[in-house]
């Protein structure tokens, strides 16, 4: 890879300051995304992967706050932007799509309103030219007869169609980076495949980088270039997708991969990771996974630092798998 990456997240910590105590939703996470690259951000619910996404697009709400770390996007540290500058980035250079397409489109506004406002928030253009861009974006995500669709309300669409519209809205200003927070989880499997394919195609064509947040490794396998695994708000390991899937180094990644049903393991009982995710509220120092880890030793009560076992691979573990 040449030149600096498009996005460099460095030692990001995002904490929620609640009455019950500080919840370290994101705790020392680093990764980078190159231009036009697709990164799979993987973890269970509560691993902080969505919160990492919100941090990058500046949508962390109180009592949450970024307490440490840098998010360098195309040379600018986003954590230092003021509200107005943030607005210029959001929706224009970085876009985001969410999990449930039934909820992301405003039920009482027409589709054209919702796309046109996204265009006009960033470009001083007439409604007509904004509409032209909207039409184009809808066609790109595979929506036929866009004019008819533009005049409709969200409730007149199916789930898959709504997610296409949401993607079109994300694409309409030609962003450099799209953060997709489990956008296919709520959809039927067949629609899931279509959306994945569409998304990948569109990003490749336009050179848009993509951060695909998911708990589903099988989705990442066919889509991403790089994978970053998170656990309990912390960075676990990262590397090229094929590498990670073939040779996971962290016991947690290995557990994740082993618990995915696969064709060549048919008939054998599925393996699973024992125990459950720790509460982020009571999490002390040390590796958060050690209570569930079969290779854990006394040493794991300290926090391991991030190492680079091989070029392009990064890892936070004292006892990597052989």
């Amino acid at each position, binding site marked *: 890879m040449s030149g600096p990456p498009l996005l460099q997240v460095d030692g990001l910590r995002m904490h929620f300051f609640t009455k019950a105590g500080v919840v370290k939703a994101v705790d020392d996470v680093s990764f980078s995304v190159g231009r036009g690259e697709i990164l799979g951000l993987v973890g269970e619910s509560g691993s902080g992967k969505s919160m990492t996404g919100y941090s990058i*697009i500046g*949508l962390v709400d109180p009592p949450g706050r970024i307490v440490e770390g840098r998010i360098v996007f195309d040379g600018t540290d986003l954590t230092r932007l003021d*509200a107005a500058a943030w*607005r*210029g*980035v*959001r*929706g*224009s250079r970085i*876009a*985001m*799509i*969410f*999990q*449930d397409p039934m*909820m*992301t*489109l*405003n*039920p*009482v*506004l*027409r589709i054209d309103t919702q796309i046109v*406002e*996204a265009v006009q*928030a*960033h470009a001083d253009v007439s409604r007509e030219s904004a509409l032209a861009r909207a039409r184009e974006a809808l066609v790109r995500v595979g929506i036929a007869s866009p004019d*008819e*669709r533009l005049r*409709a*309300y969200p*409730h*007149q*669409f*199916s789930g898959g*169609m709504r997610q296409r519209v*949401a993607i079109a*809205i994300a694409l309409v200003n030609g962003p450099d980076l799209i953060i997709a927070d489990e956008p296919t989880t709520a959809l039927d499997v067949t629609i899931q495949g279509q959306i994945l394919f569409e998304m990948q195609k569109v990003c490749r064509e336009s050179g848009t980088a993509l951060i695909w947040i998911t708990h589903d490794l099988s989705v990442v396998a066919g889509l991403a270039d790089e994978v970053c695994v998170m656990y309990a708000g912390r960075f676990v390991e990262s590397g090229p997708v094929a590498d990670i899937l073939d040779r996971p180094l962290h016991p947690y990644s290995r557990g994740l991969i082993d618990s995915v049903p696969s064709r060549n393991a048919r008939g054998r009982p599925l393996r699973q990771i024992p125990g459950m995710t720790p509460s982020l509220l009571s999490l002390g120092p040390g590796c958060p996974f050690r209570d569930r880890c079969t290779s854990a030793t006394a040493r794991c009560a300290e926090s391991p630092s991030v190492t680079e076992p091989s070029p392009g691979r990064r890892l936070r573990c004292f006892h990597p798998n052989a």
Partner: protein
Amino acid sequence: MLAYAIRRLGQSLFVLVLMSFLVFIGVFAIGDPIELLVNPQADEVERIRATAALGLDKTFLEQYWVFLKGAASGDLGKSFVYNVPALSLILQKLPATIELAFVAMVMAIFLGIPLGLVAGLKPDSLVGRGIMAGSILGFSLPTFWVGLVLIMVFSVNLGWLPSNGRGETTLVAGIPVSFLTLDGLAHIAMPAVNLALFKLSLLIRLTRAGTREAVLQDYVKFARAKGLTQGRVIGVHVLKNILIPIVTVIGLELGSVIAFAIVTESIFAWPGTGKLLIDSINQLDRPVIVAYLLVIVTLFIVINFVVDVLYSMLDPRVRLGGAAAAH
């Protein structure tokens, strides 16, 4: 849409007839107006003549039939007290009531929704808590007592505002209104504030609850992710969603504002229908009571109908005869 409107109209008519019957039974049972109206020294002949003149010698059903026949042609009987058609008496007083209710409602809406939005967006801030505390107080304050306190402070102690009447009125399309003259404004200020207070508290709570729920929705987060200004996110995405229940409530409360104007009008001697009703109840002026109730019921029915139409305009999901879902 048309079929729906016709069905609604039919239902409304049924309610109206039903109400007229109930009201008539009820009012029929109120005391004996002759006792009050005829000079106690009058002899028996005089009394019988008066009874016949007022149609009170007929049976209940006959009286109701006469009433219905008259009502169909817009004649709701003559006031026993003023000896003029009851309906025209009501209609003559109605503009004052509607003006009061309207000004109060406008106050409640234009203060209540913004305050509720602020309280909903910043529920834990000092301002948010203050607004909420104010609305709890407004909810608990008995309307009529607030009226007294207003008079005590602004009329008696400070001497700023007059405590009764409509003041100077101007004619708009032949209807006298107060709010266009300074004197009229001074007269309407206290009654309108008094009447608005409860609705204001209600709207603050409603808007606050709606806002708190709406800001958590994904579509708000998505709107922010588009890079929209805070103003547009709140003013369009949040507001348009919370406005749906609010419009419904406002519509329904319009009726109750007119009803509660009875109290406010009595305190501030505002010459509207509410004061007329209380006077008529005290004087057993049956036709006026009946006419008042029927006019109010009709008004409610019209309001409900308009609210339904508005509701379907605001919420595309219930829009009648909308396009079928496309997949």
